[in-house]
């Protein structure tokens, strides 16, 4: 029983890390319909910003997160304006080619400027160490990640479903021309949602750095996992992504405990089954 509970806690923590990093990708792919393979690259940029701010400049962890988000968004704005704006609505192959190209550029530049060694984001004393849950101990940082995950999920859901901006966004996605005709500046809507997605990527890159350490190949290394989460959850669906992360986290963690030698067999088996049964993902909102 203790073991079962223990695995459940690990699964929840791992699932939430996946969620925080992947949800931004779900927004770009589902709502903006851009297959953004550079998502991991933006998460990595965020991580490097935070690492630089906290480790080299000696700022606080919260300041580090803020700098990471703002810094990454500032970098992303010209990229959106000059590169991404050309591929909205373009065939998916074009999108894939361009975004993977951006990824390789980012890897190269990071490798050149920061070198190939691992970078960390030092945790504040508050998040260090572990908490005793009675039946086991869990890293304080993981609890923090779990809370962040739920907060992000709630915040995003509110933004998209309950605010004025959310209405405009959903309208733009369904029929951009008609929405524009009604006086909504769709370009602005796209730019803002792109910024939100990038900000989420950066946030995820920073708080997930304990589990997915930062190095130049981060941008590609974890991209498959992020894409899997989005396709299983249903692109653009927040509850979908949440369920997918928790489910995949549980399967992966249990598989790793019971039969580590099978590698990611169970993980991908589950993915194949889900995608076969639900081709649009668990909670696909697209027509």
């Amino acid at each position, binding site marked *: 029983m203790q073991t079962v509970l223990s695995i459940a806690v690990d699964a929840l923590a791992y699932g939430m890390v996946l969620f925080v990093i992947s949800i931004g990708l779900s927004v770009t792919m589902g709502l903006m319909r851009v297959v953004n393979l550079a998502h991991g690259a933006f998460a990595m940029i965020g991580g490097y910003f935070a690492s630089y701010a906290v480790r080299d400049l000696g700022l606080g962890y919260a300041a580090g997160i803020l700098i990471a988000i703002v810094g990454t968004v500032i970098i992303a704005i010209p990229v959106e304006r000059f590169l991404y704006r050309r591929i909205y609505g373009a065939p998916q192959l074009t999108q894939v080619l361009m975004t993977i190209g951006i990824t390789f550029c980012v890897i190269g530049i990071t490798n050149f400027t920061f070198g190939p060694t*691992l970078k960390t984001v030092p945790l504040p004393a508050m998040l260090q160490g572990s908490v005793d849950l009675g039946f086991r101990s869990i890293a304080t940082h993981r609890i923090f990640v779990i809370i962040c995950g739920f907060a992000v999920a709630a915040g995003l859901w509110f933004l998209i479903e309950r605010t004025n901006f959310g209405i405009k966004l959903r309208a733009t996605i369904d029929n951009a021309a008609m929405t524009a005709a009604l006086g909504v500046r769709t370009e602005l809507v796209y730019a803002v949602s792109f910024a939100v997605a990038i900000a989420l990527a950066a946030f995820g890159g920073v708080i997930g750095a304990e589990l997915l350490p930062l190095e130049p190949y981060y941008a590609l290394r974890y991209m498959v996992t992020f894409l899997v989460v989005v396709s299983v959850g249903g692109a653009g669906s927040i509850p979908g992504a949440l369920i997918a992360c928790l489910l995949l986290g549980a399967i992966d963690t249990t598989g790793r*405990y019971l039969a580590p030698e099978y590698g990611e067999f169970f993980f991908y088996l589950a993915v194949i089954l889900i995608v076969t049964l639900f081709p649009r993902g668990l909670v696909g909102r697209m027509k």
Partner: protein
Amino acid sequence: MKKLFAAAVALVALSGAAYADTIKIGVIGPFSGPFALQGKNFKAGIDAWFALNGNKVGSDEIQIVYRDVPQADPARSKALAQELVVREGVQYLAGFYFTPDAMAATALLQQGNVPMVVMNAATSAIITSSPLVVRTSFTTWQTTTPIAKVAKEQGVTKAITLVSDYGPGIDAENAFKAAFEKEGGKVVETIRMPLSTNDFAPLMQRVKDSGAEGLFTFLPSGPPTLAFVKAYNDNGLKTRGVKFYATGDLTQESDLPALGDAALGLQTTYHYAVSHDSPENKTFVAAAEKAIGNPTELSFPAVGAFDGMYVISKMIEATGGKQDAKKAVEAVKGLSWTSPRGPVSIDPDSRHITENIYLREVSKDANGKYYNKEVRTFEKQGDPGLGFVKK
């Protein structure tokens, strides 16, 4: 335009003539991609050797030709080795970070009349695949065996092994098991982790449930080591007193700043620590740090490359600069010298390096820099893995 071309051709021809007694060495390694740091260390070791010894052996000038194999890719390694031998006319092949790359290229040695000096690849079997291979690095068996002894001496009777599920990991598992059971301990469970594992928490739970008093792990250096050490600390294994043992791959100097306090006190065995206290090593480190640019990036492949260059220089001396692979290899059998890592020799039977293996503990020096502090020496260790190679 035509004139210019002719002039260029003439220039190339002339310079070719001027370098008639240039001896070329082909070095294959990962110089780009995720393992570029290791290739950079090869280069730093070679450059350090040139800085300290000059680029001439007798009257012959040495020239290095680098070829890049970013990830383990035997087909590409073989193709590049062939190109080096046939087109570039190299007299020696060297480098090789990954075992499959070295294995693939050994097929060319006999016909090409070229010896191979392996500067890293650490599987015992490479040496048996051609009589023209000499190795100046280490094998996983060699670095793993002493830690099993250490574990037993520190009172561990039940151990669990967690290794990355690929060649060297499995070597490490077998080596630890063989050595630990010979000492009278028991390996209660062996776990092979997929290379792509990034969350180790469930595995730590496995360790807890197994009731082992010590864990032995082998992970390739890079991102997973960080997550693994964190998981070991965060899941309360450290506070429960489960002892941690690994080979030095886990505490490679370039990863130590990232591991930070989490790694303090970890015990590993390895053939080389950058902090090794000897005049030879001080000279080497000074030259290699200058060559690599960023001192924090310097780690073990550099010393393998440095000693590889020494062995090649001895080969060139023995053959007088003429291409004679057999004679070159014969000449270095039994060769012994003082390397930056300590006294070493080339075993005449196996052509593998006999060296000291050190037990190290991750410590922090006065400047707050983390380093592998050598606390114990296992002298003149050969390769115990050779007896286990499938013939």
